[in-house]
């Protein structure tokens, strides 16, 4: 009896003790992170979901369960529709500009030897700068009468363009500033991708008679850069979809709603008008888009293996 027990746990006590210590320390080490995860992400998400089914207004006293009314209202609201269209339009300008522009610059910079680091620094500078401060500078650069951009246009014989106060140009102008901000970031990611392409592939291509720059790009660089491109594409989409800063500082949604974007509306409804329930529903619409983009990314990264 005692012998059987001893042999069952014979060599084990030390190992079992070890295992117990490991479990306890594991739990202990994970606990602070788990508590914070609970308090700053999971619980707020649950509260947000619950709020989105109510007509709660922050600071108000009564609150009723309204079911899906907030979501129905959001989908029918012309302001929300317009802001969604504007956001997608903004994404549609920033993504091709920010991705293809960065790819072009990366391919050109990659083969420079002496000047490479100079160009890297210059193109990366806007990424590190405080966008809000630079937005003020952009506002001045684009000023209809005082700005140098219009100064140049005038010198070229073109009339002044009120970039930010003209409904037809305001959103596109913000998109150009968006491209300016993230081009360097994407360029660095592309450069990392380019460095990973083996040099002898290009030599092999040379021997096969594929020597033109564009030929080489299409047969080697572009296919091998596939996973990088996919990653850059999705992160750019997510970043662009979250546009808020430049709108909040430069246009505040104007002129005549032409730069109203989703996150700005979430901010206005939630923290300016305190339509908390409604803003909660809008937040979920915002989150739905982000999750779709993230899902595309996961799918694309899985595909990476097959290249």
């Amino acid at each position, binding site marked *: 009896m005692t012998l059987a027990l001893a042999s069952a746990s014979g060599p084990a006590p030390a190992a079992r003790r070890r295992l117990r210590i490991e*479990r306890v320390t594991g739990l202990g080490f994970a606990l602070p992170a788990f508590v914070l995860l609970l308090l700053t992400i999971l619980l707020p998400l649950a509260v947000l979901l619950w709020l989105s089914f109510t007509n709660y207004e922050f600071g108000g006293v009564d609150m009723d369960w309204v079911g899906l009314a907030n979501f129905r209202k959001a989908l029918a609201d012309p302001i929300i529709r317009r802001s969604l269209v504007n956001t997608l339009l903004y994404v549609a300008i920033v993504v091709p500009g920010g991705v293809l522009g960065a790819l072009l610059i990366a391919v050109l910079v990659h083969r420079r030897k002496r000047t490479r680091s100079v160009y890297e620094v210059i193109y*990366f500078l806007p*990424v590190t700068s405080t*966008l809000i401060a630079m937005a003020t500078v952009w506002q001045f650069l684009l000023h209809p009468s005082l700005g140098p951009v219009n100064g140049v246009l005038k010198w070229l014989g073109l009339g002044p363009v009120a970039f930010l106060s003209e409904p037809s140009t305001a959103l596109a102008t913000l998109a150009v500033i968006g491209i300016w901000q993230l081009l360097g970031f994407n360029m660095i*990611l592309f450069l990392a991708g380019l460095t990973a392409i083996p040099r002898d592939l290009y030599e092999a291509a040379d021997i096969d008679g594929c020597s033109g720059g564009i030929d080489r790009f299409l047969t080697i660089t572009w296919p091998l850069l596939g996973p990088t491109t996919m990653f850059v594409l999705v992160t750019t989409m997510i970043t662009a979809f979250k546009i808020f800063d430049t709108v909040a500082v430069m246009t505040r949604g104007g002129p005549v709603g032409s730069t109203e974007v989703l996150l700005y509306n979430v901010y206005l409804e939630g923290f300016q008008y305190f339509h908390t329930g409604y803003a909660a529903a809008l*937040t979920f619409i*915002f989150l739905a888009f982000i999750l779709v983009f993230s899902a595309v990314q996961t799918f694309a990264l899985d595909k990476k293996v097959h290249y």
Partner: protein
Amino acid sequence: MTDLVLPAPVTPVRSALRRFLSLVLIHGVLIAGAVFMLAPFVWMLVTSIKPPAEIFNAEISLWPKQFYGLQNYGFAMEKAPLLRFALNGVILCGGILIVQLLVAIPCAYALAKLSFPGRNALFVLVLLGLCIPVQVPAMPLYIALAQLGLLNTYFAMMVPFFLSVFAIFLFRQFFRSFPDDIINAARLDGMSEFEIVWRIVTPSAWPAIAAFSVFSAVAHWNDLYWPLIVISDARLAPPPLGMMFFADAETGSNYGALTAAATILTAPLVIAFLVARRRFIDGITVTGVK
């Protein structure tokens, strides 16, 4: 088959000429892009030392006729506590980063090297957390902070960022490749798990920690959304919010002072970037290394 004619006329002179032309084209494109990238910075610096008269006559000149820098910077510093904004930025970024590291490193070590109940579930939560931007939990957090009377505090500004699921994810990847033999040897030497984490594993992950620190500091120095929500007291404003307050105040179209303020608030990060170029590029693009 007509293609066969093409390679024939490539004489040394022609190929040299072609090389030269392609170099001109390449640098032409790169320099044009560089002008677009640098223009706002150059214009910011130039305008910040120009007198109002030269700003308002809208002449494009890259150097002021009359040096007016002292007045512009003096006015900006006097009208707004710019150094205070910068200090707030330092407190904010420092506070967030310290807690992020203290929380994420042990958790990442546990996820990478220890087996404990709920480990996989926790990791799934971490992965899901990666997809949730701060704008999503913002409203419930705001309501909670308001109920607790904590709006307009440094704590309110920092609390949503104390947990960085990204840091946990990144460090876990790094710790996984740390050799088990060393950990076991340390255990045999009688080291506690606590000592193993902080004295053996953490120093080995230095590159990842440095990269994450830069990433975190840049992100929170420049963040506007959350401070805009919880801070209305200008004395607590971090740089972006401070810039917004300053631009909204009477300065209206005093571009000399505005660009001076923008220069002061942009300078710390830009200078840090120019000094530690590689670290910065690695840090900010660390999200792409997944």
